[in-house]
């Protein structure tokens, strides 16, 4: 494989990126996302580490993570597993404790996010991936799903006026101290938690930037957007409306 010019120079500005990957049954996707991250960071020359937080996946995700650790090194792949499924917020708290970077990347391990631009420009406290602006978008979504997504986002914008176009995405880059401070304040679960993070970031006067992302529908595994999801989304939205 031909190496790109400059790919072996490290950027000497001292920034290090910690990628937090909470996983649950991502045995198939984990090696692929790790490979992609190693490729992108390797080419960019930035210093990085990947922290895999597995919640006791029964499909052997941790075992695959251990193999990846042997391939890429223990300084690049850190394993911080937990005994059982304990939720996203606590996974981030757990991951931050072991992160040595000054920037923290949050993303799903299921390959659904694909970013074209660079999220690092602008010096923002928090950069959020958006499907709704620029050349962000989706792949493999039928009309029903698009309608629900845009409709829910519209209701969110009207009620919360959050200053960010996409609240339910989970592709984000935080300054480490900003993430620490926000995670402590947020009480919701699941992707309402992601929404709450951005709302609280705005309240705390942190600067929020956006970068377009392509959301490619789950390549492996099932997608979850049933009636239950919609109801719990609305409940979460109304809770945020009444409490923030």
């Amino acid at each position, binding site marked *: 494989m031909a190496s790109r010019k400059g790919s072996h120079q490290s950027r000497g500005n001292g920034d290090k990126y910690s990628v937090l990957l909470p996983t649950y049954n991502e045995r*198939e996707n984990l*090696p*692929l996302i790790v*490979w*992609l991250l190693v490729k992108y960071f390797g080419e960019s020359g930035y210093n990085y580490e990947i922290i895999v937080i597995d919640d006791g996946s029964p499909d052997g995700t941790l075992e*695959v993570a251990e*193999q*990846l650790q*042997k*391939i890429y090194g223990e300084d690049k792949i850190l394993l911080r597993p937990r005994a059982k499924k304990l939720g996203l917020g606590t996974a981030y708290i757990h991951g931050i404790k072991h992160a040595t970077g000054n920037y923290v990347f949050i993303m799903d391990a299921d*390959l659904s996010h*694909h970013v*074209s631009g660079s999220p690092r420009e602008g010096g923002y406290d928090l950069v959020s991936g958006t*499907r*709704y602006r620029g*050349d*962000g*978008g*989706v*792949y*493999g*979504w039928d*009309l029903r799903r*698009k*309608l629900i*997504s*845009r*409709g829910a*986002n*519209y209701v969110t914008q*009207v*009620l*919360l*006026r959050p200053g960010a176009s996409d609240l339910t995405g989970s592709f984000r880059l935080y300054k480490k101290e900003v993430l620490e401070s926000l995670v402590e304040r947020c009480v919701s679960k699941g992707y309402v938690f992601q929404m709450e993070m951005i709302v609280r970031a705005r309240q705390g006067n942190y600067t929020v930037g956006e970068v377009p992302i*392509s*959301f*490619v529908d789950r*390549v492996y595994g099932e997608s979850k957007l049933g009636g239950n999801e919609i109801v719990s989304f609305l409940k979460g939205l109304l809770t*945020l*409306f*009444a*409490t*923030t």
Partner: protein
Amino acid sequence: MTKLLEWVFGVSVIGAAWALVTFDLLNLRLPVAYKEVAWPMPVYLLVVFGCYSLATVGYRVATFNDCEEASKELQDQIKEAKEDLRKKGLKM
């Protein structure tokens, strides 16, 4: 102030102004035209908001980007990744 309180406050202020004009609560003796315009305003504004919402969401659904190239790129990368990982000794 929470968003809910902001809304309650905003609606109260507008509601009070509307009631004041429509029912002449302070005996201001405004021209009849003011009352006639003010009276249907709440329903009118709701309808306008409803139409605006439908148009906005409709427009956004219609212009929702479909990322064909991203999907193709991802598929290629997955192939490349699997090949490379197999060479490096990963057993999937």
